[in-house]
């Protein structure tokens, strides 16, 4: 019955969402308790922190003298923030089911002491009397840090001295008060600073412009890129200046800065970060290959073309290794790429163009892959498919293949070779005449330079002329 009464009281409290006004004033860093025996640490974040074991408490405090008692209701209003961990440096800890011994570092970080000799240096010959067992269920309150393999990695006395209070150990801070609207100062100086291109290439000319506004007016506007003064405008609320990005780029970022001095002697400066894009991709540099899929041992021509750029130099890279340089000022550069890998492998080719001003432009990547050999494409075609007895007819076999055709053959139905032609030229053979009517089969066969073969057949019908 008592239980039920308790619970009713519980919901009564829930309904009365009274502000947490405490009879005994408590402040951050206090130890608190209510009618129960448990003692909590009152953190700077307004939450209470649980001491999971008495040993944890005594690593921080010698006694319970400073504990303040508040009402059960007030305690209930304070949410639990978490568990207090051991004070750093004081004791070593372990869990019963794992022989590893840990030192405690700031913020509940456990650091495995990897050898007994290190433990002796840190905690003396009787180090093993300074190890507490942490119940398994509280092990998760700690986080794992770097192991201590060397006694210089950790100093117990320093760790302990640095941990003066739980707030600091847990890095708890006071949440800001209810954000009342801060007084907005009357809007005064406004500066708009813009750049035509915030990712320019070396050699590009960018335009920097400033518009400033202030009741009393503008005295002077200065525009800088890094520490170089680009322009100064006086007694004007707008200012524009051009700046050429140096061709020799030592740093890929630059800072554009506008400094505006107003009549009332206040100053306002704004900055824009410029990212120098040394290798802008696709800016008028084209790359193509005769074939992007080739066979083992083959090569293919690759062309890099920059028709709209005042080319000084074109370089072609295969897998980022420079393979060819064309420097005569022509806008096209070619390279025969022979990857030399096995089936399934590929290489990546790109071009890099440098123009007269030293600006560079990079092509897209082109991938050339090595695939299995394909059989030739073969066609066999008689001049006529139907002839009379006594007539003859020409049969022509044509073949093509990316590797080139080694030979073409025409065979009869019993696979006797009727004609052998070397090379890729069409191969023609006259068949017939036949005395008997019937259907006669012929085969056309072709082999490519890799010895892959393919054949096709055709049928010639021989009929009686009425």
């Amino acid at each position: 019955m008592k239980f039920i009464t308790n619970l009713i009281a519980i919901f009564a409290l829930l309904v009365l969402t009274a502000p947490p006004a405490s009879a005994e004033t408590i402040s951050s860093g206090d130890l608190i308790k209510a009618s129960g025996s448990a003692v909590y640490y009152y953190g700077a974040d307004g939450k209470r922190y649980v001491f999971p074991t008495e040993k944890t408490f005594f690593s921080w405090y010698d006694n319970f003298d400073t504990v303040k008692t508040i009402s059960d209701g007030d305690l209930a209003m304070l949410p639990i923030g978490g568990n207090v961990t051991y004070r750093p440096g004081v004791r070593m800890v372990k869990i019963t089911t794992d022989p590893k011994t840990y030192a405690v570092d700031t913020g509940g970080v456990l650091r495995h002491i990897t050898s007994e000799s290190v433990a002796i240096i840190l905690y003396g010959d009787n180090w093993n009397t300074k190890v507490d067992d942490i119940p398994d269920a509280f092990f998760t309150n700690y986080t794992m840090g770097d192991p201590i393999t060397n006694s210089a990695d950790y100093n117990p006395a320093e760790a302990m001295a640095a941990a003066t209070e739980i707030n600091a150990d847990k890095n708890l801070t006071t949440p800001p008060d209810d954000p009342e609207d801060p007084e907005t100062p009357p809007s005064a100086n406004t500066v708009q600073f813009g750049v035509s291109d915030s990712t320019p290439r070396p050699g590009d000319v960018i335009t920097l412009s400033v518009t400033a506004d202030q009741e009393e007016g503008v005295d002077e506007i200065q525009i800088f890129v890094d520490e170089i003064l680009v322009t100064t405008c006086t007694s004007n609320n707008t200012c524009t200046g051009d700046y050429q990005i140096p061709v020799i780029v030592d740093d890929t970022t630059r800072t554009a800065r506008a400094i505006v001095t107003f009549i009332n002697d206040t100053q306002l400066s704004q900055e824009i970060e410029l990212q120098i894009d040394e290798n802008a991709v696709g800016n008028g540099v084209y790359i193509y290959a005769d074939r992007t899929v080739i066979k083992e041992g083959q090569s293919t021509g690759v062309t890099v073309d920059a028709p709209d750029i005042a080319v000084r130099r074109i370089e072609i890279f295969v897998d980022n290794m420079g393979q060819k340089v064309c420097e005569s000022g022509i806008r096209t550069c070619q390279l025969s790429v022979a990857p030399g890998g096995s089936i399934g492998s590929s290489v990546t080719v790109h071009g890099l163009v440098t123009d007269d001003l030293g600006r560079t432009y990079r092509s897209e990547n082109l991938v050339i892959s090595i695939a299995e050999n394909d059989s030739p494409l073969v066609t066999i075609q008689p001049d006529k498919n139907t002839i009379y007895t006594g007539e003859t007819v020409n049969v022509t076999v044509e073949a093509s293949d990316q590797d080139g055709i080694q030979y073409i053959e025409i065979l009869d139905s019993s696979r006797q070779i009727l004609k052998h032609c070397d090379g890729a030229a069409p191969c023609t053979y006259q068949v017939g005449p036949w005395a008997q009517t019937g259907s006669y089969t012929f085969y056309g066969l072709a082999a490519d330079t890799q010895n892959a073969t393919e054949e096709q057949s055709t049928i010639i019908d021989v009929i009686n002329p009425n």
Partner: protein
Amino acid sequence: MKNIIAALSCIALIAGMMLPLGASATAFGPGSLIKGESFSAVYYFAEDGKRYVFPNEKTYFTWYENFDNITVVDDRTLGTIPIGGNVTYKPGVKMVKITTDPTVYVVDVGGVLRPIASEQIAETLYNINWNQQIDDIPDAFFINYTMGSDIDAAAEFKPADVANSVSNISENKGFDSSQAAISIGDTVTGFVPSSITVEVGSTVTWTNQDSKPHKIKGEGFQSPTLEYKDTYQRTFNQVGSFEYYDEFNEGMVANVSVVN
């Protein structure tokens, strides 16, 4: 005094690491309950290769009816397996509160506590004797839970449905069932577990929990040298039994059994 003895035996164990006693065989996997030979505590072994602590018996009995089906491993082996965290209540089964705060919570999936806004709702959810369905969670374990939104209407939470929506602790913790993990111990404990069964397509992660380096070699797979805390991963896409060993300590042999 007891403390000193414990600490001394601890040093003896560290020294014992040097003796090649031969790895003990251990067969368990994600979802197994394990305990040490001389410790009473039972742990849940999860897909991440870590053991999860039941902070109290009440938590255990929300998940299991008895202590059957617990794999006992030797203490050294247990010590090799890192602690991953604590098990929380099975969702839906009970309501919980802490002693020093009258708020009553339902437990939702993933150890999320949701305050019940009124007694009427509590009664709708857990019937007339609802107030006997509330467990006190010790303050120190409250941090294992996270706070969710209030239950303002009974329709927001159906205890039976929520309880049925997770079938095991791994699901409740959101572990990926296609993962498994093995700890690499010393030459005494060997690989932990030394025999594991996973479904085809599973990824197994080995983590060196030993201060000495190890190097895994198996049929068709080989790890780089793994220093303390280094990991090695392999996905098993074929059914079969895959034996492997430590190249630096060839007595450390174990196997992964891949099934459909």
